[in-house]
């Protein structure tokens, strides 16, 4: 049974951190910044196997879980709590190895900082940025739910264990979509629309702005439905069950 800190670090490393890839694809400036860079940037907790690393090679970026044998730059945190604080936007300075590769650091930091967009306080005015935030939040929800199950977190695992093959689908207008598939204890978070079966619960946001209002909690759900920001179809009780677990994630990641 994982502790709260262990769960949080999982969410940060396996769910939030990989979103830098999405940011990079979406933003041409970010891509130019790290094009032709070949380096490994690692985030790890001192003395443990807990960590993840960004692998930049040519024009590609991969996010790999675990410890790399020979990272170019390494951000090492003294403990889990520090790592969690860092990713939650709190002050927590890691030990940095590979300072001589300042070029790598300077190009990676903006990518990391872009994740600040996910924070509640961030409210970009630029429509493109708002759309990006929606996409990121959408991917984050689904992946976080799945990762919680894979981590054996009881509330999420309990739901997945008893589930027949079911798909929970989120769709924003003609824009980003993501799903969570569950079957007999297994879960998978995916992007786009799952085509092999119809969704068991479908949450549709007719447009980006409505999705933004709902996903950032600017408008409460009941009000959102009244205003047409979101339409839910499918199993009522299970929408509620998923909602409860999403609340859990918010609590884990916000504090």
């Amino acid at each position, binding site marked *: 049974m994982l502790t709260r800190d262990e769960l949080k670090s999982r969410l940060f490393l*396996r769910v*939030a951190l*990989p979103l830098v*890839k999405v940011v990079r694809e979406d933003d041409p400036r970010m891509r130019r910044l790290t094009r032709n860079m070949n380096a490994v940037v690692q985030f790890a907790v001192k003395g443990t196997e807990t960590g993840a690393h960004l692998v930049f090679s040519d024009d590609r970026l991969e*996010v790999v879980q675990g410890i790399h044998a020979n990272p170019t730059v390494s951000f090492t945190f003294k403990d889990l709590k520090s790592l969690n604080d860092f*990713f*939650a*936007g709190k002050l927590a300075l890691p030990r940095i190895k590979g300072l001589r590769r300042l070029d790598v650091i300077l190009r990676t930091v903006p990518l990391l900082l872009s994740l600040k967009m*996910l*924070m*509640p306080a961030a409210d970009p005015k630029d429509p493109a940025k708002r759309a990006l935030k929606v996409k990121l*939040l959408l991917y*984050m*929800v689904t*992946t*976080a739910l*799945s*990762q919680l199950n*894979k981590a054996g977190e009881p509330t999420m695992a309990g739901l997945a264990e008893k589930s*027949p*093959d079911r798909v929970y689908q989120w769709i924003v207008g003609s824009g980003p979509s993501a799903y969570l*598939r569950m079957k007999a204890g*297994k*879960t*998978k*978070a*995916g*992007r786009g629309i799952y085509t*092999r*079966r*119809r969704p*068991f619960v479908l949450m549709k946001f007719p447009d980006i702005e409505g999705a933004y209002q*709902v*996903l*950032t*909690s*600017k408008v*409460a*759900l*009941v009000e959102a*439905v*009244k205003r047409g920001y979101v*339409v*839910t*179809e*499918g*199993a*009522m*009780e*299970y*929408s*509620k069950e998923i*909602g*409860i677990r*999403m*609340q859990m*994630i*918010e609590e884990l*990641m*916000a504090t």
Partner: protein
Amino acid sequence: MAKGLTWTIDDADHMTQAEIYGEVLTQLGAQNERIIALTADLAGSTKIGRFQKDFPGRFINLGVAEMNMMGMASGLASVGFIPVASTFAVFASLRCAEFVRTDICYQNRNVKIIATHSGTSFGQAGTTHHCTEDLAVMRSFANMRVIAPADSYETAKALAAAIEAEGPIYMRIGRSFEPPLHKSMDFDFEIGKAIQIHEGTDITVVACGRAVLSALEAAEIAKQQGLSVRVLDMHTVKPIDADAVLQAVGETRRIITAEDHNVIGGLGSAVAEVIAASGKGCVLKKLGLQDEFSIVGYPEDLLHRYKLDGDGIAEAIQQVMKMDFEADEDWEDEV
């Protein structure tokens, strides 16, 4: 970081099609002043309350006295009204069975019964509030027509058709939070004529009510394995569309029936009657409650338990076709 991604589905009314039925009844009520709505203390639960708001003089709440409601409906019909009487299916069909039979069917009174929360759709309320026998009972009453619409759009159309048709009609619906089958009101609906929801030549699934959407899902799953499944929305269980059944017998030779009902006496039996009378060979597999009482559970879980969801029907298709489908075994999160 993730603040805002939480919600609970409390005000589900606005997220479902629950209002469509109430809207349509109200519209019909505006067009036809002979329509009078009756309920037995279930105005809120059966969505007939919308009608009450607009036509308070033509709305009667009998309190928890369903038998009197049916008797009154008969009396009102005798004076020229078109009573639309609504309560939970288990009460409408079983508690009131004799009143429906003797006061309404036997005397051929123009009463429309809207039985809500039929089958196992009442989920958590448990077996006393489920009704998996109503199709069997109502089918056996002469003069009664029996309809099980697949979704709220069909309920609306069926209601309009029922008002137009003379004579007693029993219509069983869910709790109105069922997902839609149709995309809009733009389709034809005729009492007694099945709707072909999906074309196919290998096997036919004949379903009614909630099971129709499941049948469609199963057909889509099967399609990916190269199977061609015909899906018939048999919304009118009596009089059944015998032609559609006979066509399925002749062209596909395999029929699976699916209903949120006991396999004894309902849609499956009605289809079996047609097949047997035709004298033609045909495989028949009946999905539904296998002569058992239901249990407490979320409605979707109960559908799954009784193999009335997409997976259950797909599994039945597999068995009848003696084929295995490939499962999707990719469980890595996309990051």
